[in-house]
């Protein structure tokens, strides 16, 4: 499972996919990991993200990796959420929001949920920028270096590897012909 995830990450990194899609996947993964999932807000966010051109594979991998450790940030998220939710200036707005049918299902009035959402939004832009840069750097430097390395070339020339590659490309062709 874990190996499959790593393969998927490298597959995404090595493909011709827009680095922003991968970075957005990472940023949304962070956000969804921070927000507790037992509410409608999390489901709605996930649905919206799934509609966007975001690398959902990377996103789910990040959610799965970060979710078990998200509770460590709970005290911090609680303090953010509590500070905003109990702000007197926003009381009227939140009261109206709370009384809109179905909105309570988002559990926005929970300090950890709201703190997670706010912190996730704040974190989204820096994470997006950072990972876009990192993906570009990887493709420009690391990937080229690997592809030009003797080990890689030697590995790819191995009879078993080359035959696997040939078989897979043939399979792909067949699929495209059928389609």
């Amino acid at each position, binding site marked *: 499972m874990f190996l499959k995830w790593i393969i998927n990450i490298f597959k995404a990194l090595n493909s011709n*996919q827009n680095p922003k899609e991968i970075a957005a996947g990472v940023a949304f993964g962070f956000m969804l990991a921070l927000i507790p999932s037992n509410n409608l807000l999390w489901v709605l966010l996930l649905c919206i993200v799934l*509609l966007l051109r975001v690398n959902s594979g990377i996103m789910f991998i990040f959610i799965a990796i970060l979710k078990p450790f998200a509770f460590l940030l709970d005290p911090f998220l609680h303090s953010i959420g509590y500070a905003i939710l109990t702000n007197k200036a926003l009381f009227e707005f939140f*009261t109206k929001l709370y009384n809109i049918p179905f909105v309570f299902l988002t559990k926005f009035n929970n*300090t950890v949920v709201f703190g997670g959402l706010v912190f996730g939004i704040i974190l989204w832009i820096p994470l997006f920028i950072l990972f876009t840069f990192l993906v570009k750097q990887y493709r420009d430097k690391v990937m080229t270096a690997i592809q030009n390395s003797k080990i890689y070339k030697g590995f790819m020339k191995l009879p078993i590897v080359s035959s696997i590659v040939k078989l897979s490309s043939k399979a792909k062709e067949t699929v495209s012909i059928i389609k």
Partner: protein
Amino acid sequence: MAKIKVPSLFKKPIKEKNFEKKILKKIYIKADLEFIKSMFSKNESGLYEIKKDLTKEEADRLKKIADAIKKNKSIIDPVKPTLVATVIGAIVIFNVLFKDWLAKRAIEKGLEAVFNAEVEAKGVKLSFIKAGIKIKSLTVASDTEPFKNLFELDKTEISFLTPELFRGKFVIKNIECSGIRWNTDRKTDGRIIKPTAEKKKESEVKKEEKKEEKANFDFSKIDTSKIVDEQLTNLKSITFYSNLNIEIAQSKEKWETNLAQSKNDIDEATKKVNEIKSINVNNIKTIQEAEVALKKINEAYPIINDLKGKTEKLTKDFSSDTANIDKKTKEATSMIDKDISYLKSFLKIPEGGAKGIASGIATKYLSQKFGKLYYYAMKGISISQKMKKDDKKEKKTVKREIKRSGYNVEFPTTVYPKFLLESMVTSVNADVSYSGWLSNVSSDQDLWGKPSTFFFDRNENDKSITVNGFVDTRTNEEKSMGLSFEMNNYPFSVNEGLEIVKAKSVAGLYSLQNSLEIMKDNSVVGKLFLKLVNLTVELEENDMISKAFLEAIKSTPVVNMEVGYTISSSMAMNFDVKSNLDAVLAKALGKIIDGFVKDADNELRKKLMEKLEPELKKNKELAKVYESLKGRSLEDLKSADKLKEELDKKKKEIDSQIEKIKKEAEDKVKKEAEGKIKEQTKNLPKIPGF
């Protein structure tokens, strides 16, 4: 050789601007970018065109790049919305096919849990958008009567708050019902919990007992001995006298022993006192002799005091036992009167004799009717309480520790109970027109802050019924239920309790106004005004009594009754009935019935006394013995007092003897001293004068 295919994206010559924007910008791997640039070149028209002699490897790589460019085109992936739309479509289809069925099952199962009987809902249509349910018909079976429905609803529309469903609450804002019927027949047994064979047997026995009660009563054939014999085990006075006699006998035995012991003590003490009494005070000449006598007295004192204390306590305890026995003897006497009243009830004579005939008949009739009314009222309260309990149960199960729980900041909002029916309205205008409403039926009245209220009005020709009331399960409220109802021109027929007037049945029309309140302990207090008109009587025999009864009824065209009643939590009913018919009947039947009542009373008393005779005789004997014990006890007390007095007297005598001896000794010493002084002063020289 296979033909080399060029991807369609690269087939046509492309402008430089578009080449930059649509192709180069969509390639994110440097090597691929370089490869594409090497594959294209500008033609004479200034457009970018792919080179013509492509190798297979180049064509394959171009295909891969073209696919990646296509994928990287827009922000929204066209495949994903299609998937989402498919999922939504599936949900919609599921809703269309199954939601009504699910709603029907939910209604049936939910109501079955509340009413403990089968529920059938037909034509259920659920709409989440309109937040409503439409039901063609709803039938709720009775949980007590096997082939009866508790109620039936015709076309009904329910509007509820959908958001609250997601909070696990069912809040009905309004129910509009086009028709409602009660106590209708059904073909199958609708009870969920059916009575066991044993219970069935019990109810059959009860029915038989009832049949026996209905047996006709004939004045001339009263067998008082039979009544007494049959009810012997239920007569309290016989058992009471028997127990009382056992108690007296035990007490007698106890006091005989105690008094014998006391007698011994007194004899002992008397010996001692007699010894002291034999001391002759005049023979005591010296202080030493007096002290010896005094010592003897002082030694006797504690014994006498102890005896006195014991005797006093004995007398006190005895008096208390005697008082207890006296009290019980009095009780036993009143028990005889109660037994006579009890036995009289088997003669089916009204409580107040001839003056209470109408009231008596009414009381019996009302007891049955109110028993049913009380049952329904209690059912209403218990359903309301059951909902409350279920609500609390749910709350308990919800309490569990959730990871990453945080803290919920609460904002002002309407908090609904688990179940709420804010309003239900029904109205029909036909030959039988009726209207009604039910409001604030909630699973937690404490939370909702309002009691459930209801109103019902039914009119059929000149008959009408109006019911108005509330059910209150709030913790701090005194009353569980309040109910007032008015009925006009309803037919009635009474065929029980009429033996006294020798009638088979009395029928007519009645109008009533009733108001009652049920307290938290399930006791009921209420008042009823009853008006009976158009009375017809079917006589059993054509004798003097029945004729007099018929005349009395004819002479009273309107019978008014005022009934004050209470029902205790143990279902004991007490009716205070006042009626204008009582006086009329008393006048017509007074002499006959009162005479009969007196004779029956005497006869029953005689028979009961015969049964009581052995116990009474025993009681008399025991009382005599007990009386003698009382005398002995008092004697003992007197003896102890007397001994003490004698002891005191002797002590006094000895004390005065001691005083006397002391004085004599003093005088003697004084005289001797004076003589000596005189002798001494004789030889003294005389004092010269001045």
